[in-house]
């Protein structure tokens, strides 16, 4: 089947989807199944890799090559897949516990190497599959089964971590904002290099409404700023508010003011992307969604394969006998 004729149905398996009714994961699954056919990539070239957790059941529902691995290790397994065949489109489905807690090491190293994989991190700020313990993105004071007196752990800011690790594409989107979700997944797919996408995802069983303060339709317009490349960071129901950068401090000002902060996704100074990652934490600034930063860089898989190809070009394909007999050798003659 040519890639142009593919539809969402071609990416749907016969397996019954077993997330809780009302889970944000359904929306993400549907969005991915809708975006994949539009990318011009044959179905057999997709590989979806996951770790452990609710979100990591993702590969079973995608009719592509898929690998449900072990807790936290999806980026490492994906590294082997991509290095063995860089022509594959490799996707990682992971959660806040899988990616940031047990798998934190693999995540940062995949990003610093600029491995050409797309990481969809479903952030629901809770451990769902183990039935409700606090996660590395849970807020301080969170009361859960494992923190009856409130969590004293300070949470990770996943985007700040990604920016700091050198990810070449960093974005945020939200499960229930379907057009934005699809557009962000597509932008990640089009990026060559590590794409890290944080998806606010509601766990309606163990952490219902975790993002309600920014995603509820009634507050969304004032609580979110949907970043557009090369455009001022304007938000608000009536598009009347905007961000201005005062040194490295973001201020909310009227949209009609001058010197508004014009977003530049390809800004080589990631300090501004870092400032954006810190917004929306109760200081009156809106929570940014969209692409925080992106830049072009050589990929790890590209460089690794090139070294092998260069070695072959320079030294010729290896001659096994020559290798075995290399170095100082001597001959023992037949006994007379």
């Amino acid at each position, binding site marked *: *089947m040519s890639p142009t004729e593919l539809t969402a149905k071609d990416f749907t*398996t016969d*397996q019954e989807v077993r997330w809780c009714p009302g889970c944000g994961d359904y929306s993400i699954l549907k969005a991915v199944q809708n975006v994949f056919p539009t990318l011009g990539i*044959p*179905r*057999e*070239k*997709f*590989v979806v*890799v996951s770790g*452990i957790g609710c979100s990591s059941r993702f*590969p*079973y529902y*995608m*009719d*592509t*090559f*898929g*690998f*449900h*691995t*072990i807790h936290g*290790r999806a980026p*490492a*397994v*994906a*590294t*082997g*897949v991509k*290095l*063995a*065949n860089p*022509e*594959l489109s490799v996707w990682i489905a992971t959660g806040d516990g899988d990616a940031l807690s047990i798998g934190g*090491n*693999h995540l940062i*190293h995949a990003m610093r190497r600029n491995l050409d994989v797309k990481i969809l991190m479903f952030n629901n700020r809770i451990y769902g599959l183990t039935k409700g313990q606090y996660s590395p993105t849970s807020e301080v004071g969170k009361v859960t089964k494992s923190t009856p007196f409130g969590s004293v752990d300070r949470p990770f800011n996943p985007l700040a971590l990604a920016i700091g690790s050198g990810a070449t594409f960093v974005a945020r989107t939200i499960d229930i904002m379907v057009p934005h979700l699809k557009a962000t997944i597509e932008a990640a797919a089009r990026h060559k290099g590590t794409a890290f996408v944080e998806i606010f995802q509601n766990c309606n069983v163990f952490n219902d409404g975790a993002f309600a303060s920014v995603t509820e339709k009634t507050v969304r317009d004032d609580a979110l700023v949907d970043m557009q490349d090369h455009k001022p960071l304007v938000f608000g129901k009536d598009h009347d508010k905007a961000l201005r950068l005062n040194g490295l401090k973001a201020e909310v000002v009227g949209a009609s003011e001058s010197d508004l902060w014009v977003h530049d996704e390809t800004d080589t100074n990631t300090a501004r992307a870092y400032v954006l990652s810190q917004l929306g934490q109760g200081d009156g600034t809106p929570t940014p969604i969209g692409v925080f930063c992106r830049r072009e860089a050589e990929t790890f898989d590209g460089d*690794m394969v090139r*070294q*092998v190809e*260069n*070695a*072959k070009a320079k*030294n010729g*394909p*290896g001659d*096994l*006998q020559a*290798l*075995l*007999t*290399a*170095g*100082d*050798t*001597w*001959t*023992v*003659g037949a*006994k007379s």
Partner: protein
Amino acid sequence: MGVDTTQPKPPQVEEIEEVVIRFAGDSGDGIQLTGDRFTTEAALVGNDLATLPDYPAEIRAPAGTLPGVSGYQLRFSSLDIMTPGDQPDVLVVMNPAALKVNLADLPKGGVIIVNTDSFSSNNLKKAGYGEKNPLEDGSLDAFRVLPIELTRLTRDALEETTLTPKEKDRSKNFFALGVLFWLYNRPLENTYQWIGEKFKKLPEVAKANRLALKGGWAYGQATEIFQHTYKVAPAPLEPGLYRNIIGNTALALGLIAAGQKSKLPVFYGTYPITPASDVLHALSRYKNYGVMTFQAEDEIAAIAATIGAAFTGNLAVTCTSGPGMVLKGEAMGLALMVELPLVICDVQRGGPSTGLPTKTEQADLLMAMYGRHGESPMPIVSASTPADCFNAAFEAARIALKYMTPVICLTDGYLANGSEPWKVPAADDLPDISVPFCTEPQGFLPYSRDPKTLARPWAIPGAAGLEHRVGGLEKADQTGNVSYDPDNHQLMIDLRRAKVERIADEIPPAEVEGPESGKLLIVGWGSTYGAIAGVRRDLERKGDSSIAHLHLRHLNPFPKNLGEVLARYEKVLVPELNCGQLVKLLRDRFLVPAVGLNKVQGKPFKKVEILNKVQEMLES
């Protein structure tokens, strides 16, 4: 005595069977390099040889201290030999600490070649000799001490170079080597050439090392401290082309050969760890053989990436040592569940925990056998000599590909760094171990099985129509879908076990060296081969051919006839460098009253240790 002293008498050349030399000094003294170079010369004149490098875990422990002593033992022989020797005949010591650490191993009458310049009161104190100088207090009277002012003589020999005195001192190992080359009648030309290549970028150092080598040789010739020089004739090795090889290099070459013979790219995912890192160093140079080496962020990532590469159709290999094996345990279980071909090499070292990183041990066998949760059988192969690491690696890859399973390949620190002459195989004689990828979408079921091997099809990403999902959750038979069905779980457990057991249908039956039945069978595995085989051959040469030796390559599954072989002997002895692991497996599996001989000191067996136990068992 009527000796004519007007002209130096040429020393007599005495033909001897073999020599064991141990070089010892600070880890910065170039001991490993010196030992290695003498080894190459011994190899080139056709001696059989075996080596035992013994170096500290610290890269540069404080100079002159006991923990900083590095050693290299070499046995070269005109006979076909098996071990680097129980004890040295000649001890070359560069400082008091080296003397202190090694003297106990030297038999009375042994030769000590000593750098007297290093016996300063400061160095004597550091070595724990206090105010006493063992060179002067008579404590070495039982030995033949050959004192050489190595530092001064080297500086003199290097007078014409532009090096500083400190730089000149670094060449003193070559002066010592020159003395030994003269003593054992070795030519200098190969080493001149080698120095030129090794120090290509440092021409003044190359010149200095050549002068030092020559100076040592000339010193030996000009002085009369040696009454004899010695000659060790070539050993009666099988005809063929030979090279000297260390175990880690042999392992790397075995993996490359497996890649070529399976027509697959080799993916080597690893994390640096002693004593396995040299395999990475070797493989990373051979990218033109289609080898990709990935130095991962940790041990878990190393095996996880390797599993990803296996999923994508590479000959995927990870290699580590004990602590890394522990970290890889969960991922090994995944590899087993998804039934992908994987080679996992464990270059065993002293444990537990960080243990003795640079020393050898065989204490990971039970971990290889049982060290995963759930019922998770995995084939295990082991290497018995440095050169045999080539065969073990190749065999591990063959089994992995044919049966679609992870395979553990056990070597150890002694094999990894030890060396021996290797009769280089003809590449054309190595078997084709390629397996076809699945390409047929019609009727494709990811967990269907080859009726003979029980291997599942290998369908790699990129193959249209073969899209499928694998993972760590229990798989339904045939479809590979997630299944929690109790009967299916039992079935899959049974299938995974049966698959490993079926390997026994094709591996060679256990064959003994020595009598087919009788009083005593020694069963070994891994690096104890040399010591056990040496004991048996020594006894046979003396006319006692009552004991047999069986050395196992395959530890899981065992050869099919193993139980029957064990039953043919009155007694079974199992020497191991652990507290009794193979012996436990044999007793459990075959209900034989096998007896262990166990040592866990970070060192290989001496032949005499095994011999004593054999005699004790034969007499009782």
